[in-house]
């Protein structure tokens, strides 16, 4: 009989769903529709194979991370499962380099002390100490570089970003968490067009996603729009222009919302510019990262422009 390992306990699961098995034995887990639809009860399998049916309707990013719906999962073998919001483990990393990418954004390269698995576009938690933690997205691509690459915006008075900019130097050891998050590239559907919209250091995950897509030989369009208030807020511009020269399916449109600009920098709010250029998004995959208000409007507007909700991946942070 298959066993379910959850929260350090083992439960026998005979001819029943994972959800029914756990709740029947008094385990309290969230659920609602019990029909594999509402995704309230979603869990992640850390070992064992999940029947395909238990992942129907989940987007590709969730499937790739072994998320499944326990209410429609009758396990055929032993599985170990966790809730999605379980805090990821911590590991040590060494600072390889640290340098300003523009006046406000610090680029940090980190070498993890242990093998570190992640997908470009996911984020890590960065610990100043036990209780002072900030999340930063990964701009690096594991197949292309050994170091993790973070883009940290220096927030005036920010506890973690100030500490990073004032104290951190190459060779230092820092504590980070394992990577998590659902805003990343998967190589299925290589012909699908991709629109990416980011503001400020929201460029970081997009930079990882774009380079991962190009590395995997993505065939569809990859159109990046990076927005900032002024021209000084743009960064990685040379690297992105070079990529656009090397790959004909990749375009890079930096946008500034304040002040006059010259070609090739576009004038206007990044979301408006992106939608002017790409008014019909039926069948497109969309990545949105950066200012929470921008991300929220962009989710709505790209959906109205025809993108399917399951193809819109968003990572709001401020």
């Amino acid at each position: 009989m298959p066993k379910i390992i959850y929260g350090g306990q083992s439960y026998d699961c005979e001819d029943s769903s994972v959800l029914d098995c756990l709740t029947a034995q008094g385990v309290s887990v969230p659920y609602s529709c019990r029909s594999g639809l509402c995704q309230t009860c979603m869990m992640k399998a850390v070992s064992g194979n999940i029947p395909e049916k238990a992942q129907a309707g989940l987007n590709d990013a969730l499937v790739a991370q072994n998320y499944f719906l326990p209410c429609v999962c009758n396990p055929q073998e032993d599985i170990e499962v966790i809730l999605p919001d379980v805090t990821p483990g911590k590991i040590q990393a060494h600072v390889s380099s640290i340098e300003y990418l523009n006046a406000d954004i610090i680029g940090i390269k980190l070498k993890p002390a242990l093998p570190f698995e992640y997908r470009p576009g996911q984020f890590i938690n960065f610990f100043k100490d036990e209780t002072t933690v900030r999340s930063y997205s990964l701009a690096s691509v594991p197949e292309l570089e050994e170091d993790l690459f973070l883009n940290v915006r220096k927030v005036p008075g920010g506890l973690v970003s100030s500490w990073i900019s004032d104290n951190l130097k190459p060779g230092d050891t820092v504590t980070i968490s394992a990577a998590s998050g659902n805003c990343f590239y998967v190589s299925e559907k290589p012909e699908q067009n991709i629109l990416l919209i980011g503001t400020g250091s929201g460029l970081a995950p997009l930079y990882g996603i774009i380079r991962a897509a190009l590395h995997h030989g993505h065939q569809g369009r990859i159109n990046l729009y990076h927005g900032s208030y002024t021209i000084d807020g743009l960064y990685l511009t040379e690297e992105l222009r070079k990529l656009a020269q090397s790959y004909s399916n990749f375009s890079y449109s930096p946008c500034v919302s304040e002040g006059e600009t010259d070609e090739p920098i576009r004038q206007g709010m990044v979301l408006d510019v992106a939608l002017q250029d790409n008014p019909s998004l039926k069948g497109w995959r969309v990545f949105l990262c950066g200012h929470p208000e921008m991300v929220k409007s962009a989710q709505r507007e790209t959906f109205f422009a025809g993108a399917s909700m399951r193809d819109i991946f968003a990572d709001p942070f401020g």
Partner: protein
Amino acid sequence: MSLFADIGGEGAVNAAVDIFYGKVLKDDRIKHFFDGVDMSRQAAKQKAFLTMAFGGPHNYSGEDMRKGHAHLVAKGLNDSHFDAVMENLGATLTELNVPGHLIAQAAAIAESTRKDVLGK
């Protein structure tokens, strides 16, 4: 044949969910109820609702409907808003060329939740 099979099963739900959710979010009468909700989570809930309305497998009880909408009733959710959702459901199915008699059956299922959804 059941309504769910006649209407096109899971494929019909998948085709309907983005259309329906788009209509709801653009509807000035009800869109404010969706301010601040996680859009991708909400889309999954819309899918659960449509599956139920299409006569598909679901386990929602009247009590689930009450609990799930109580916070909206507190914000003023009433019959006029429920009517707006019903209208969007009908328009979605019409757009997908679902025959009128099947639309009527789906509408009847959705209508049967009115009292619970509105906490009456």
